[in-house]
């Protein structure tokens, strides 16, 4: 279980600020949903935690700064699932999941028996045995997504970063993928930070939401607080009805323009 604390994070691309003074604490084992219109900085925020972009300020995990850790140590703390993962056609599912062991293998090392056993274990637990022997090029979108999550799990990282993980999936597979992440979060105490497009799904799975707009957090808190029709209208420029189900689920329904 690891908490993540952002302290005054700033990111610039070509002198243009993309993230402005982002500070937030994500408690260990919780799920933070990042929402906001395209270009708000959700992906950049995740990429800075993964160490893929330069930033000023600090990201603290378990009390010490991520930037002070070695690249491989950092990779063993933070598993990153990009929006469009690259899955080489000719690679088998098993080989792909094995890549998740990289952070634990030294520069001159090679996968040990232990690493292989770990991969077999992850594949078994996620029920991917059939997929493991097949080439990635012949798999469906849902199967590919489960392998990507399996690879992240194989890193044994306590923090999971998901960048719009289900944008290419149909509604059934979206649900499956999120249920899988939710199950793993409970089983392993993972801390999840995910950028999400679908506001209803974001509300369903996140403990807390952060709404970003032009690199700044404009609303942050519980799902009920953030997903209000006024806020969404202001920052997404959409006309929506926010509906609350009896079980507490918040449903965001886009509305047609009235003629």
């Amino acid at each position: 279980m690891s908490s993540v604390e952002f302290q005054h994070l700033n990111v610039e691309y070509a002198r243009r600020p993309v993230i402005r003074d982002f500070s937030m604490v994500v408690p260990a084992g919780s799920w933070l949903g990042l929402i906001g219109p395209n270009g708000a900085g959700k992906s950049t925020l995740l990429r800075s935690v993964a160490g893929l972009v330069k930033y000023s300020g600090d990201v603290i995990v378990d009390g010490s700064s991520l930037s002070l850790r070695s690249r491989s140590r950092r990779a063993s703390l933070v598993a990153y699932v990009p929006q469009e993962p690259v899955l080489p056609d000719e690679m088998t599912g098993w080989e792909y999941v094995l890549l998740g062991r990289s952070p634990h293998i030294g520069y001159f090392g090679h996968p040990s028996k232990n690493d292989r056993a770990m991969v077999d274990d992850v594949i078994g637990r996620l029920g991917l045995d059939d997929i493991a022997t097949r080439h990635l090029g012949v798999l469906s979108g849902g199967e590919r997504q489960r392998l990507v999550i399996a690879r992240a799990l194989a890193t044994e990282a306590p923090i999971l970063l998901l960048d719009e993980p289900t944008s290419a999936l149909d509604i059934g597979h979206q649900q499956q993928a999120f249920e899988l992440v939710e199950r793993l979060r409970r089983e392993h105490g993972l801390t999840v930070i995910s950028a999400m497009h679908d506001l209803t799904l974001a509300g369903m799975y996140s403990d807390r939401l952060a709404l970003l707009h032009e690199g700044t957090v404009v609303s942050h808190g519980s799902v009920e607080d953030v997903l209000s029709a006024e806020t969404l209208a202001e920052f997404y420029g959409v006309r929506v009805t926010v509906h609350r189900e009896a079980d507490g689920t918040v449903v965001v329904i886009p509305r047609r323009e009235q003629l």
Partner: protein
Amino acid sequence: MTEQRRAIPAKVALSVVVLVVVACAGAMTGPAGPDWWRIPLALAERIPGLGDGGLGISSGVTEREWSIIWDIRMPRVVLAGIVGATLSLGGASYQGVFRNPLVDPYLLGAAAGGGLGATIVITTIGSDRLDWLVDPVPLIAFLFALGTVAVTYLVGASFGGMRTSSTLVLAGVAMVSLTTAIQTFILQRNSDVVREVYNWILGRLATASWSDVVLVLPYVVLSTAVLLFHRRHLDVLRVGDEEAAALGIPVGRVRLTVVVAATLGTAAVVAVSGLIGFVGLVVPHMVRLMAGSSYRVVMPLVVTVGGAFLILADIPGRTLSSPAEVPIGVVTAFIGAPFFIILLRTRQVSR
């Protein structure tokens, strides 16, 4: 999956057997010399424990015949093996770090630079160099090959940093064009040596001696060791620079190390054998078609398969129009291309 993992040593062992058989076939081919079937025996009886005092293998080969085998045929076979292995491994490595299947080890200018170096030596020093203690052609070719790749790398890195490999590839294209243009310009002004330079460029193993083998061996061994060591990194790089970095791989350092090692080996073999095309591009693909695409299995196998391939290609090169020689680069493409097409086809059908 378990079977798949165990299969790697088995595949490598099988390819080593093929390599040895092909090497024997190479030693058995050629004018003069003893009966062909005596040659494996002659080689075997000199291995401690198999000849006198051991198993007692006796070939009945005379000293003069042995000298044909050992001093003329074997250096050529060994050099062909080394060149084939190095170019194939270099090709597989380049394809890996640039994530591009159409790349060969000459991509960043090793061949063009070597060709320019050789051209300059042949045109400026000419036949005077035959009196020199050491033939300057391979030495200068080697240095020019390394120099050209270094310039490519600096140019590419200064534009794109290590963030994109495509700037490096484009810088390579530019450098190859530039070097080739300079070479053509020099050749055009010295048309009397065109034939000699042309022969060098086509690639040759005919003049191979043990001293050539000794000359390239240190670079080739170093290059091979470093490249084989990075096979795991090449597998991780297959998911792209960014994801590889997120998995803890120092992408820039890995790419630089692999490029330097592959270039060192390529430059060394270009210096002694000229430009032998096709091998570095296609042998890695042949291996992938036969044994799968994981670099854990591709990297060791391209060494043995590449070596065997070039030794085999050299046999018709020596015999077809004997006593004249068909350039090895012509043969590699001539037998390699149809074989590759057949392999592609059978693979398509079986999928």
